[in-house]
Structure formats: structure tokens, C-alpha cells
């Protein structure tokens, strides 16, 4: 009787049945549908071209001033924000602008972004927020590479 519990008889049965399935994997059968490799390859390359086309959308050039609107996909929210003294941060905001930073507006926020240091100073109507963000995080239109995202097993 096959109970699913290990015993010598079951192991012999399992071995014989596993061998049958291996035969199926390794042999073409008379009932198999013919395989059209060229049609399959065409379908595959079409799909890959489609994904490559999505990958190749040009990212926003770094250091180029641009204004964000609500219609555009928003960049990820600042991750390491802290509320600090408005005067200190207002000075920092002006300093970043003076050193060649980029002015970005988004709704009620106005931000100065330094390409070289990755510092973003955002100013809101009700106060001043600062945050340190990497240039990659601040990139708005460019998508991160798929390879890096999907390298996980």
C-alpha cells in the first residue's frame, strides 16, 4: 500500500515512477506538437525589443534645470528629511543656489539641488526642510536599471 511514508517498497515505486517522468522529459513523443523555433524566436525577440525600448527612454540630463508639474510621475519622496531651523536652512538653500545648484519647484515646495554634492534643500510655505539625497534618488525621469532591480533570485 502506498502511504506516502518512506519504506523500501515505496522507494522502489518512487524510483520507477521518477524514471518514467525522466523518460518523458528526455524524449519526443509521437503525439508532440511540432515546434516552430523561428516563430517562437520572433515572438521572443519582439518582446525583448519592447522591453529594451522601454529601457532606452532617455533620463533627464543631470544639472539641467527643470520644473516638475503634478502631471509628471513624482520622484520618490525624500527619505531622510528632518525639520530644522528655517534660517539655517534658508541660508543653505541660497548657498546651494549660489554654488550652481538647480532650482526645482513642485507644488508648494521649492528645492535647490546641488549636482556635485547631492544635497537637496527644499523650502515649503510653512517652513524649511532639508534632506540629503543621492543624485540617483533625485533623478526624476530616468528609471533605474532593470538589471540592478531584478538581480535577486
Amino acid at each position, binding site marked *: *500500500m*502506498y*502511504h*506516502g511514508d518512506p519504506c523500501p*517498497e515505496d522507494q*522502489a*515505486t*518512487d*524510483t*520507477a*515512477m*521518477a*524514471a*518514467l*517522468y525522466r*523518460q*518523458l*522529459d528526455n*524524449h*519526443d*513523443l*509521437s*503525439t*508532440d*506538437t511540432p*515546434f516552430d*523555433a523561428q516563430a*517562437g*524566436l520572433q*515572438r*521572443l*525577440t519582439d*518582446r*525583448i*525589443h*519592447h*522591453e*529594451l*525600448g522601454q*529601457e*532606452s527612454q532617455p533620463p533627464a540630463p543631470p544639472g539641467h534645470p527643470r520644473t516638475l508639474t503634478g502631471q509628471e510621475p513624482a520622484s520618490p519622496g525624500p527619505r531622510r528629511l528632518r525639520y530644522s531651523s528655517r534660517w539655517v536652512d534658508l541660508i543653505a538653500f541660497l548657498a546651494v543656489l549660489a554654488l550652481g545648484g538647480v532650482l526645482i519647484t513642485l507644488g508648494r515646495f521649492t528645492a535647490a539641488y546641488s549636482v556635485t554634492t547631492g544635497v537637496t534643500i527644499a523650502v515649503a510655505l510653512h517652513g524649511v526642510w532639508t534632506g540629503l539625497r543621492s543624485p540617483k534618488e533625485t533623478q526624476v525621469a530616468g528609471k533605474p536599471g*532593470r*538589471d540592478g532591480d*531584478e*538581480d535577486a*533570485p
Partner: protein
Amino acid sequence: MSPAPDPASRPGSGDPRLEVISQAYLAHAHAVRRHAARAALGDDQAAEDATQEAFMEAFRNWPKFRQLPPGQRRAWLCARARWRVIDSWRATRVEHPADVLPDHLDPRADEDDDDVLAAITADRFWKVITTAVPRRAACAAYLKWHEDWTMTGIANHLGIDRATVLRDINVVLDAARQLGYETGLPADNKGGMA
């Protein structure tokens, strides 16, 4: 009729990933599709979709696929195709387990199966598991003997209790034994299973 677009002008033309994966497709797709068709119990569309998805996974997991030795790429692709089919069996509704083992399911339990099962050819076994047993039983048998899953794992995946899995396994086993006995008989005594 408009002329076909120049392939060289398409996005990604010349991309090394596309070239390697196209070569891999030509080398392995036939085996991968056969592998997927066995898992899909003869469902050609499911097998084709699983094959495509396996190669798309190779493209999306390019750093991993690229590092595989050429001899392991086929196995990697077959596994992806197989898992995709198996994943489609996942139960949407899980029954409450009634973990009672069935009694005396197989009256031929004490007989030696080895010779009987060894007499079966792949063609005849394929016909049995795709036409003579319920689909759920064939899925359970595939997970048991091809994937080496435990009874509990099969029960959870298919959303049935272990006792039902055991009954299903025995249905397939009985059908295989019957086929083996018929195969072992002299030609003029064989039953109707062609």
C-alpha cells in the same frame, strides 16, 4: 502594404543580451518547450507561454543568466518553464485538511512494482496520465515523482488535504501498474489500451 522595419533600427539591436538569448533560444527552446509540455500535461498553449516566459526571465535576470556555464543554461531554463506551469496549479481555495490516511487503497500493495513499471514506455505512460486519470491526480503525481515534493507540500499547493493527495497518487499508480501489466502480457492478451 508597408515595408518591414529595418531590424537594425529597432530598440536594442546589437544589445549583447539579445544576441546571447537568441542563441540560447535556438539551442535550448525545443527541450525547454518539451519540458514545459510535460508539466502542462499536453496543454500546448501553456507550454508555449511557459517557454517564452523562461527566456524572458533569462533576459530580465541577465547578470545571473550570463554567469551560468553553458551546460547549465538549459537546466535553468527548463526549471523556470516548469515552475511557471506548476505555479498555475496553485489553489485559489484551500480546503480544511482532514489528515486521515486512506486504508487499503491498493490491493496489489505487496506485489513487486519494479518490473511492472519498468516495462512501460514513455508514449504509453504519457497517454495514461493525460487521458486516463483526472487532471488533479496527474498534477499531484507530477509534483510527487518529478518534483519530489512531500505529500503535505502537494496538498498545500493544490488546495486539497493529504488524504486526497494520497488517493490521487494511488489512482495514477494503479493506472501505471495496469499499463505495466498489459505491457508485460503477450501481445495477443493485451487489453484495449493502445
